[in-house]
């Protein structure tokens, strides 16, 4: 059990942590697949009337280490060893880890009239974010004996949640303006949220008396009920709004995502609180013949005890995202666009910028490259590809960071979405528009 606990704790620290948004910028420019609708509820594929999204998966991972740091080489043999101390030196003094996944189980959009479209979808989101001092891992991996006479800063912040999203949206199109609104029912499945992040462990240099100075609270939510029953607990809602305006070859888009109160977690809660100082200075008496290792560890744990309450309540507001973009159709085969992205979460405010170029290389195959800038200092080159096969099958792949494709095990940032859609009913105005644009270009060439 302890082993499992430590592995869990490790994974928790390395791969889990924040309720940040699932920052996905390049997909905003894939306006021929349904998933772009996630960034603006007014943005529906302009090519087909009915779009059915089968399962798609999104993964995002940013960490201070890469996969190869978890691989230990002994001679020619390489062993994936997540619990090794080799990468401790690569960590900064304070580290951030975020990982997100999204499993979109199904989605559909279809017209109910000339101007009105309906969009429905369900997805399971997992958002994890952790901030942790390097010492927290050092403590687990190397212990505290290297910090005798010092204070170990074990500060950390944890925000993790897995939740369901059931969404229904409408898009109203009038002439060149589309307005979208989506209401999202949320249902928290599992969550853990910390508040206050102070965890300081002092080990004195006489007989190593340990003192814990804390201002820390962790609330976990895990209703011990069946998955079906979980759907009725820890509910909430949010809304997305968006508008798209088309001006000749220029399309402008503005959206706000995750507006609203979010999820109210109150079922299956446990609150761990530690505030103030506690210490363990050793036994008053120790019988070497009968005092066990378990007695020792139990006494330390009890002395440095967290107060545990079998209840908790936490309001998890989903991070509000704003997408402001413009796409210019250079010619029937090339589009270029720019996006300004902003995100306000409980933890911080982030900004992003994307410049994208998409080419319809051949009929049914779109390729694009993007330049992404996140959080002021994170730069990456993205890639996306959409293939339309057999008229109704649509395969797509998109990433904000191409590096993890070319060298996935040395990349500290993983980002990508892939999936399959089905499309039905090609829009006439779309084909007409293309033909019109093509004729115009041919005239220009002849002139």
């Amino acid at each position, binding site marked *: 059990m*302890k*082993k499992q606990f*430590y*592995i869990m704790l490790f994974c928790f620290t390395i791969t889990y942590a924040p309720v940040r948004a699932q920052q996905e910028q390049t997909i905003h420019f894939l306006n021929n697949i349904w998933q772009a609708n996630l960034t603006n509820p007014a943005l529906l594929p302009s090519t087909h009337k009915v779009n059915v999204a089968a399962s798609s998966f999104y993964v995002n991972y940013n960490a201070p280490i890469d*996969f*190869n740091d978890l*691989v*230990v080489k002994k001679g020619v*043999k*390489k*062993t*994936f*060893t*997540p*619990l*090794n*101390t080799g990468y401790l030196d690569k960590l900064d003094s304070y580290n951030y880890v975020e990982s997100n996944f999204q499993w979109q189980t199904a989605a559909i959009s279809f017209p109910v009239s000339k101007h009105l479209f309906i969009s429905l979808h369900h997805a399971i989101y997992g958002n994890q974010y952790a901030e942790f001092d390097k010492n927290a891992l050092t*403590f*687990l*991996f*190397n*212990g*505290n*004996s*290297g910090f*005798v006479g010092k204070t170990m800063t074990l500060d950390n912040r944890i925000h993790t949640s897995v939740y369901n999203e059931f969404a229904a949206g409408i898009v109203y199109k009038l002439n060149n303006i589309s307005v979208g609104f989506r209401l999202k029912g949320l249902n928290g499945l599992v969550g853990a949220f910390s508040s206050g992040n102070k965890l300081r462990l002092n*080990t004195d240099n*006489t*007989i*190593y*008396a*340990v003192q814990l100075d804390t201002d820390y609270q962790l609330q976990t939510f895990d209703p011990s009920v069946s998955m079906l029953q979980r759907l009725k607990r820890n509910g909430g809602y949010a809304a997305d709004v968006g508008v798209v305006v088309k001006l000749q070859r220029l399309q402008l888009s503005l959206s706000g995502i995750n507006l609203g109160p979010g999820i109210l977690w109150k079922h299956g809660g446990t609150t761990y609180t530690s505030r103030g100082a506690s210490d*363990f*200075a*050793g*036994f*008053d*008496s*120790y019988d*070497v*013949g*009968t005092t*066990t*290792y*378990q007695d*020792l560890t139990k006494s*330390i744990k009890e002395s440095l005890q967290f107060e545990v309450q079998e209840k908790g309540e936490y309001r998890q507001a989903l991070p509000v995202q704003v997408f402001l973009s413009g796409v210019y159709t250079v010619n029937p085969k090339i589009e270029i666009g720019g996006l300004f992205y902003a995100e306000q979460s409980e933890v911080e405010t982030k900004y992003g910028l994307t410049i994208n170029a998409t080419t319809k*290389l*051949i*009929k*049914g*195959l779109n*390729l694009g490259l993007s330049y992404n800038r996140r959080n002021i200092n994170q730069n990456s080159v993205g890639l996306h*590809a959409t*293939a339309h096969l057999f008229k109704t099958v649509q395969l797509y792949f998109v990433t904000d960071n191409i590096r993890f*494709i*070319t*060298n*996935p*095990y040395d990349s500290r940032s993983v980002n990508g979405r892939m999936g399959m859609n089905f499309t039905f009913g090609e829009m006439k105005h779309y084909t007409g528009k293309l033909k019109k644009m093509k004729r115009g270009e041919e005239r220009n060439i002849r002139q």
Partner: protein
Amino acid sequence: MIFTKTNLLCLIFFLVLTSCKKPFDEIDTSSNALNPEFAVPLLNTSIEVGEFISGLQGNGALIVNNDGSYNLSYEGAMLTNPPLKLFETLPEIPAMPITNDNMSVTFPAPSGLKISKMSFKQGVIRWKMASAIDAATVILTLPQLVNDQGVAFVKTFSITKNSLLDSVILRGRFIKPIDGKIQVNVVVKDGLGNKANLREGSISISKYEPQVVEGVLVAREVVIPKSTIQFDFFKKWKFQGNVQFQNPKVTTTFNNSYGLPTRVFMDIFEVETVEGRAIGLKSPLTKLPNGGNIPLKPTILALNEIGKTRKTVYEFNATNSNINELFNASPMAFNFSSRAVVGDSTVQGFFTDTSNLSMKMDISVPIVGTAKGFLTENTEGVDFSSYEKVTDVELKVITNNTLPFDINLQCYFLDSKEAIIDSLFQKSTLILRGAVVNSNGSIARPSDETTFVKIEAERFKRLLLAKKMRIQYLTSTSANGNIPVKILSNQGVVLRVGLKGKIKY
């Protein structure tokens, strides 16, 4: 055309495939690669001197003196002699015929006892008489049988030709034999006051028990049971080396309620050392220079002290005995065997039915002295199996000592057959440095000592198999055991132990 949809899809597929190199050969999700070392406090305590010494006292008692010093006290059992054992059986006066008017009858006294006065706890005088005539009056007089007023026993009664049985209870009366005899006077008269004769007559004394006997008792020996006092201080701890106590003493306390000369001969008064030797006490109080015994003489009671008890204490100390020699030989038991001689044919005295001679031996050892190379040993059962996750260990032992002892420690770890697996140190190591003492043995200042004990992984693995631990303490008093030191109640040891241990998750 090179940019066909098929070609491009193949190209993407190829790029993905080539980027998906096998990242590793095997997976190890265990925590084997981790061997963190944690530093935790293990023990933080202070040991008062009382606790420290009480571990050594065994069945003794630790007495705190007014000045804060300690005495280790061992109390022997009270050895008593039941007084009635003085007389195995008490004789009776059988029915003796009354042959004349004034006859002298021997009072049945135990052998060696010449009674001058005796009170009865119980007893009966019986007589049987019949007259030679039809009716007669008898006056029976026992002039030496008196009541508490000193009035002699006189009984007047009528008899006929038929036998008359009568008796008188002796309880509350005294008898005063003269030269062991008592007088019985019988006067028989007819109705006119003339002397008459008895057809038959007899008198007897039976079932008597004395309460207080005055007289002369020929000296007789009374055995006092043999006794042993276990002196656990040394017996409990296997040792070698030398411990010297200052001013130990053994006291012999007699409680005597005999009014007769009493002498106690200490036939055996010796210690049994841990080495199996027996060393006898030599004292001018008990031994003549030529080896003959000198009796101890408990104080006897005077006649006006009947029923009281007098205490007599003999103290054997360094000034009147070789007691220091006995204690410095590491005694583990004190054996006593004595006999009392009660009575003297030339001395008048008394004893009662509750007269008693009890003897009690006490050992008192002030905890003042010196120790040099004093090795004690203790073996305890241990079970380290719960420490299997621990690998390398380093103990940091910090002591602050106001006790005037240096203690060197060695631990041997034994398997189930008591074979030595390993030892804690290569050689016995000083872990407790004694407080600095001045020339008169008082503490000048406490001492601090820090000791590191490192046990590497391989050694610790062996120790996990240990079933017993034999701990040896080598103790010397401060100043290299040359200055007698005094242990006071405000002394003690502050003991703090920290542990650095590598563990496997």
